[in-house]
């Protein structure tokens, strides 16, 4: 079992009750309070402890005689190699991220061990069976990419609250508390580059001897006042949009308020809560309340003050964390002030936290149902009952009377670069792009490899590992900085590169094709990989885009951000089922089910496609 979280707790319990005798469970996480509403093997007293270990101990209480081995570790650790995976009859995933799912998929393919994959969000869930050569692998179909937003929407023309959150979290928070050297679009405006970048950096730097309250007001006035004025000066932008309203600290804070603010802090200075939370120090309790503009401004100043007075050492290294109360407060306040400026409705801290943290909606019942379905499939896998394998959807609204809808698994995608040996092709400017670009943008970002080796024929161009001698490390480091055509074994049009990940035991060939020009807007990487299933993106095409952080979705099927008005269009590739006999009804229903889950379309009782029949209905249809 990989994962001892929402699905994992339910799964371990159901496996144990069903008579499984030897279970290994891996999870790198520790227990948090917000897990306790559904991860029923954990108690308040376990907060901070290893999920895998506590889950094991809890299950052994009602099934003392079975063998459960727990690992408090990352499944991507090199210890969990192909040999490790080969010791199991079946691998069951209860994971919460795409990266780990892809990684386990590859190890299962390499070890030739069947994988039962699962995911849930809210009332939706899905279970699939991946058996090498028999059914599609996890990567045969494109997965919804984390939602991204065009840069200028974030920096200049926000129209939704989420845009303000992304701005507050990824731009302002990072600028003030994070890595100063990171590229940051905070001051980019759609029109020009009038302000020189040097000036920009200075604005956010706290001057020596500058009072933190002065500093706070200066930042406030700059980002909510001055920057908005600047943006307004570009008339073109506002022709068809509502003009934002600049907000200055003097407008929102009377002197009296500012003073009161200060004195409240002094009174509560001994209270622990006031050190970590601006809400606590300002006496605001309910995270469901929507604060006024003035309250948001007070929170903004207070969080800034608390960061600088109590957490000064962390400044420069902070990244946003949804479990960091002060960070959530800062982002909520900043997003709300920006929202007020742009006439966007304000939101509570509770809501803002959910959006900023990409928090997955999770309930115990769906996880319990999905865990039950996983065990049913796992038992079929152990019996090698291949004909009975099903992919099952757990739906919120019944489709053809069904809340649990099984469909036959899809057969492997013949052009899947992971489970078939189909080569990929890459168009790239071999005279401009460096090996480093290829490693970062293709090998790591797109192919999801952790420990890559890159070869041209038998010549090694690059590898990583602990056992390399210094010469080789220096050699590879030098190669990284070289453009492809100038490598020791030059990479030019027609070259075939072999890229391999030793841990995943996954290899693929990439045919290189030289191309001079790339469209900066449409091909920002400066290279184009094909034969690789591009995750569909629910986005207008724009120059660059910013994602709302990493997706932590529990589910591979539904977009993390299930906003009803935004629908990601997924080009459902034509698929065939295991059986060679075409049964379009079932395929249609299955495709439709996929689409329903991806698009969250509400079922409308049309009864044209029936998935009907008795227990052996599938068989009968196949024979007809």
């Amino acid at each position, binding site marked *: 079992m990989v994962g001892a979280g929402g699905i994992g707790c339910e799964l371990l319990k159901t496996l144990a009750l069903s008579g499984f005798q030897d279970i290994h469970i891996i999870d790198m996480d520790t227990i948090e309070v917000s897990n306790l509403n*559904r991860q029923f093997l954990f108690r308040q007293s376990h907060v901070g402890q290893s999920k895998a270990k506590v889950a094991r101990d809890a299950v052994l209480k*009602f099934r003392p005689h079975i063998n459960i081995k727990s690992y408090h570790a990352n499944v991507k650790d090199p210890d969990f190699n192909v040999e490790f995976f080969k010791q199991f009859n079946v691998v069951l995933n209860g994971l919460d991220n795409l990266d780990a799912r892809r990684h386990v998929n590859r190890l299962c393919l390499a070890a030739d061990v069947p994988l039962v994959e699962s995911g849930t969000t809210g009332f939706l869930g899905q279970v699939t069976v991946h058996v090498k050569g028999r059914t599609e692998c996890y990567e045969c179909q494109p997965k919804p990419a984390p939602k991204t937003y065009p840069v200028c929407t974030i920096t200049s023309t926000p129209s939704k609250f989420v845009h303000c959150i992304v701005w507050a979290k990824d731009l302002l928070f990072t600028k003030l508390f994070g890595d100063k050297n990171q590229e940051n679009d905070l001051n980019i405006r759609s029109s020009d580059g009038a302000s020189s970048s040097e000036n920009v950096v200075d604005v956010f730097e706290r001057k020596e001897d500058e009072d933190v309250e002065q500093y706070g007001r200066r930042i406030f006035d700059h980002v909510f006042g001055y920057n908005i004025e600047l943006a307004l000066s570009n008339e073109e932008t506002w022709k068809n949009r509502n003009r934002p309203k600049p907000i200055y600290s003097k407008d929102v804070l009377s002197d009296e308020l500012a003073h009161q603010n200060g004195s409240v802090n002094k009174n509560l200075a001994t209270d622990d809560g006031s050190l970590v939370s601006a809400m606590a120090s300002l006496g605001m309790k309910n995270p469901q309340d929507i604060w006024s503009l003035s309250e948001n401004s007070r929170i903004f100043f207070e969080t800034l003050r608390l960061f600088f007075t109590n957490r000064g050492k962390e400044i420069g290294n902070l990244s946003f964390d949804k479990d960091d109360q002060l960070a959530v407060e800062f982002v909520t306040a900043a997003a709300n002030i920006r929202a007020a400026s742009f006439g966007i409705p304000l939101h509570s801290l509770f809501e803002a936290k959910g959006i900023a943290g990409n928090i*997955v909606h*999770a309930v*115990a019942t769906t996880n*319990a149902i999905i865990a039950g379905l996983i065990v049913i499939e796992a038992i079929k896998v152990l019996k090698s009952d291949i004909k009975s394998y*099903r992919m099952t959807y757990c739906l919120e609204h019944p489709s053809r009377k069904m809340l*649990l809808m099984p469909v036959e698994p899809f057969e492997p995608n013949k052009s899947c670069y992971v489970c078939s040996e189909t080569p990929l092709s890459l168009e790239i400017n071999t005279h401009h792009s460096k090996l480093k670009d290829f490693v970062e943008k293709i090998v790591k970002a797109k192919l999801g490899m952790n420990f890559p080796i890159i070869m041209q024929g038998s010549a090694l161009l690059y590898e990583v590992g602990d056992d390399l001698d210094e010469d080789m490390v220096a050699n590879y480091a030098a190669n990284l900085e070289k453009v492809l055509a100038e490598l020791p074994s030059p990479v030019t049009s027609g070259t075939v590169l072999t890229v391999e990940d030793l841990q995943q035991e996954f290899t693929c060939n990439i045919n290189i094709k030289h191309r001079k020009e790339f469209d900066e807007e449409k091909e920002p990487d400066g290279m184009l990989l094909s034969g690789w299933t591009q995750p569909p993106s629910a986005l207008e095409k724009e120059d660059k885009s910013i994602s709302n952080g990493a997706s932590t979705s529990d589910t591979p099927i539904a977009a993390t951000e299930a906003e009803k008005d935004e629908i990601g269009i997924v080009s459902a590739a034509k698929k065939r089922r295991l059986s060679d006999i075409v049964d379009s009804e079932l395929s249609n229903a299955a495709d439709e089910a996929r689409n329903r889950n991806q698009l969250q379309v509400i079922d409308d009782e049309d009864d044209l496609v029936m998935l009907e029949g008795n227990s052996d209905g599938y068989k009968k249809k196949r024979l007809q």
Partner: protein
Amino acid sequence: MDGEELTEQETALYDRQIRVWGADAQRRLSKAHVLVYGMKGTVAEFCKNIVLAGVGSLTLVDDRVATEEALSSNFLIPLDENVYNGKTLAELCCDSLKDFNPMVRVSVEKGDLLSFGVDFFNKFDVVVVSCCSLAAKKMANDRCRKLSKRVAFYTVDCRDSCGEIFVDLQDYRYSKKKLEETIECQLQYPSFEEAVSVPWRALPRKTSKLYFAMRVIENYEEAEGRNPGEVLIADLPGVLKLKKELCTAQSVNESHVPDNLLERLITNTTEFPPVCAIIGGILGQEVIKAISGKGDPLKNFFFFDALDGKGIIEDISDPNAGK
């Protein structure tokens, strides 16, 4: 909307689910009182789900003494004879459930379902019965219906790898979100007795075979005076005979109730844990919907069979009722 706000502790604990059903639904949950009768694996799953969800109180009734068999699919009971010896199933489950969520009051009542009067049921908003006779189901449902307030009534049973849920929400109004709008809906439910009295011939041809099979077994138990769950494979000839009689009386083809399905249902009477998890999960979701008044509830039967993997809703009600 109910005035009282959730405490900080509740908001932190229930964070993820409030994001699914809202603070309002969470407040209603915390005021709801739930009764369950019959503590086998499926009901244990259900109890876990609603205790985690944060109902106000949960009352358990099952006077049977714990045996190895009863524990087979019940994860609420430690497999230690020293612990379970002498205690009833309800008492043992109560101890574990309290531990799952300190904010929920879990308690035990003793007695037989048939002995509980109308006043007893008045204490609850939701009543779930399992492992009981046809007569007991009808009676408990009737007594809930006699009350001036609406008590949501459910029966749940699992046999082999199949499970069944029955729902009676009486006259039920709820809201649901359709696109951006919240629309008000209303449903009329038949009682258990009314539902099972609907002539089989009046039901659509594609009605789940499990529905008929469960009725045959239920009737067999009643005719032979068996305790719930005590129909075994040795009874197959008798069960098949009764099936034939029922099909004849209802003027439906015998293929409505396949022999092999009946055989499966009485061959293995212990619950199959994955099915307990699935049925207990669906039931938990339904009860949460009924308490919060949000989302389409199922009307009025749900069936799951691990063999084909389908989880199907059937509306078994007299099409002419109320017209």
